[in-house]
């Protein structure tokens, strides 16, 4: 047998987890780009460094985003990946597919690209990895024909995503999938034509379990919640207890607010609904017995992002509760106000959270017209360095004097 050209990568064919190397090697037999992608990756494994570089801006007609241009810095050695751009294709809400649709995608990407994909990218897009500049437009045309459109990249709205929500989860307090779809369609222009200071991400989770990790990664997080009481099926609670669940230890004692109590004799769960902060723990532990209340809506949080530049932020509450029913106008209006303020005030590459940090939450709230609420903070300020608005003072406002 001939010596392998990818001895290092071959090591990744071992072991029980699905091997992308095995998978790629098969496709490499009919796809030179995959062959070269493996070759260049093997080189990276040897050199311990990447071999991709920036290049000119590439894209499709009418759009400013959706394509990540990529060029090899060893294109002479691996000519079939000299150009190796990625297309980001907007996934259907909740990542649901028919095999028919998936096969269409595969055929398109076999025809116009390397045949390599990611299901999915971290933002949520279908990632079609590796094609050449001249295939971008044809690929896009074919995608469009099949009913697919590109997602976001660059300084625009990024592809929104949502947890599985009402499609398969009993706890969804909002229609995550519909909100995601509706917003994506409403904001097609913002998604496809970068015109902002930086990226803006939007994720929608149906309840505080946040199965789409919104709070950590979305400039605006929409998290389903409820205003009334958890509903309890007392009989089902008893069944859990009878079935061996140590309700006191595993559920009641771990309630963070002390809202729960347990009558061991009667096997009865007590709940002070006004103390509950809707952390989901008890519901998670006894899905057959407990479920969210009926007065449903969402908590909105702003500013989540990764490390660069100011360090990572988790999102911050800005609207404790908003009802969310189609056509979601209140949410859309708020988004527009947020974008307007951010667009006007931010520096290049300043995420909205960083701008709020720089300008102060008070400026933000006033600019977008949201009332301050104690739910916005874990605790109020410890320093005395706060500002007064002119109209709050006796005599001339402070802007006039001095």
């Amino acid at each position, binding site marked *: 047998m001939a010596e392998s050209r990818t001895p290092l*990568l*071959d090591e*990744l064919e071992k*072991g*029980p*987890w699905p*091997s*992308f190397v095995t*998978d*790629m090697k*098969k496709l490499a037999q009919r796809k030179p780009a*995959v062959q070269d992608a493996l070759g260049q990756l093997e080189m*990276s*494994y040897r050199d311990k*460094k990447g071999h*991709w570089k*920036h290049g000119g801006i590439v894209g499709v*007609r*009418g759009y400013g985003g959706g394509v990540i241009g990529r060029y090899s810095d060893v294109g002479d050695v691996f000519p079939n990946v000299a150009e190796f751009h*990625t297309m980001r294709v907007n996934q*259907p809400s909740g*990542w*649901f*597919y*028919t*095999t*028919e649709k*998936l096969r269409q995608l*595969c055929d398109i*990407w076999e025809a116009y690209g390397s*045949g390599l*994909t990611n*299901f*999915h990218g*971290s933002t949520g897009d279908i990632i079609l*990895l590796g094609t050449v500049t001249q295939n971008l437009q044809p690929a896009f045309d074919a995608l*469009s024909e099949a009913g697919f*459109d590109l997602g976001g990249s660059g300084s625009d709205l990024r592809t929104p*995503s949502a947890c*599985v929500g009402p*499609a*398969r989860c*009993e706890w969804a307090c909002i229609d995550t999938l519909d909100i995601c*779809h509706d917003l994506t369609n409403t904001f*097609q222009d913002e998604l*496809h034509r970068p015109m902002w200071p930086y990226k803006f991400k939007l994720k929608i989770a149906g309840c505080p379990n*946040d*199965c789409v*990790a919104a709070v*950590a*990664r979305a400039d605006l997080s929409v998290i389903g919640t409820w205003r009334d009481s958890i509903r309890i099926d007392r009989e089902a609670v008893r069944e859990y207890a009878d079935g061996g669940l140590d309700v006191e230890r*595993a559920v009641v004692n*771990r309630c963070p607010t002390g809202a729960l109590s347990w009558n061991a004799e009667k096997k009865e769960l007590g709940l002070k609904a006004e103390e509950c902060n809707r*952390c989901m*723990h008890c519901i998670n532990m006894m*899905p057959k017995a407990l479920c969210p209340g009926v007065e449903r809506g969402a908590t909105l949080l702003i500013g989540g992002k990764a490390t*660069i*530049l100011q360090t*990572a932020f*988790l999102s911050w509450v800005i609207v404790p509760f908003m009802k969310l029913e189609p056509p979601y106008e209140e949410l859309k209006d708020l988004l527009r106000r947020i974008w307007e303020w951010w667009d006007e005030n931010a520096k290049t590459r300043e995420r909205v959270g960083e701008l709020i940090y720089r300008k102060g939450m008070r400026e933000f709230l006033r600019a977008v017209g949201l009332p301050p609420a104690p739910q916005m903070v874990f605790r109020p300020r410890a320093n005395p360095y706060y500002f007064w608005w002119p109209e709050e003072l006796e005599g001339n406002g402070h802007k006039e004097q001095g």
Partner: protein
Amino acid sequence: MSRTDIGPPYFKDMLPPVIKENYGRWKYHEILRPGVLRHVAESGAEIYSVRVGSARLMTVDRVREICDLADKYCDGYLRFTSRHNIEFLVSDKNKVEPLLRELKEKGWPVGGTGNSISNMIHTQGWIHCHTPATDGSGIVKAVMDDLYEYFVDMKLPAKLRIALACCLNMCGAVHCSDIAMVGIHRKPPVIEHDIVSKQCEIPTLIASCPTAAIRPNPKLKSVEVNEERCMYCGNCYTMCPGMKIADPENDGVAIFVGGKVSNARTPPMFSRLAIPYLPNNPPRWPEVTAAVRKLVEVWARNARQGERYGEWIERIGWERFFELAEIPFTDKHIDDFTFAIPTFRTAATFKW
């Protein structure tokens, strides 16, 4: 002519009939066994979801194989999860066992539900990105091979979410994962002045540095780096290819622990530095996989039932964590960036 701005396919067209009919009216679920969920609707209808691990980086052939299975057992319906697993949506109860059998034959991992390790959120690495300090798919494969038993079983104290990002941009929710690997550089960029002067916008480049380490060098129409202030984030390289940050000798992987995003019991938490550096050792990163396994197991051994990684550490205290995990504590662990102060211990209370 292609149409623009048509948006994504309508998700409702992708839903199996039982989901369409019971949309928003699910009542409860059970985990029948690792990787197999049963959701029951108010109507009594059921759907079975079989969760299968995926490499995420897949060829169209692999996707077609998935489709074949979905056609055979799921009437052509399936989904992917927010952590890149495949979920076969089985409407016919009788097809669950045959599907599981075929998956087993094919050697596809079924699991990732409940108190398990699910798939790793990860990023491009050397397969496609231009800023990585380490690979993506390769380490994931090595780590998941090693932790396989925890994917296909639910024997951990709680969910354990592992993630990897190949550079400090941290594409993914790496900064809030139970265990997170991050590719890091350890030396300031080497400046190629001709590239900087020709290809880069100097003011944007200067503004890109989180520690204000970059200042103009007007003579060369380029920049200089104050090496004392540079912490090798590579953001300047993202902005300008003349700021060569990659360094095979010193690049590697850092490990953070204790993050979460759910609100269950405790608020979302950031992951925090556990191991400042491990070397890049392709193809299987033995130091990294060993370290991750050790981190998994020290938690599994010591945490209380139902206690996520960060919840466990916050209960016992980080000083005790470093002891139990046998990780030396260094000056790197002490924050010195913007929000350092609230992490300093302002109390005489701690464990020896």
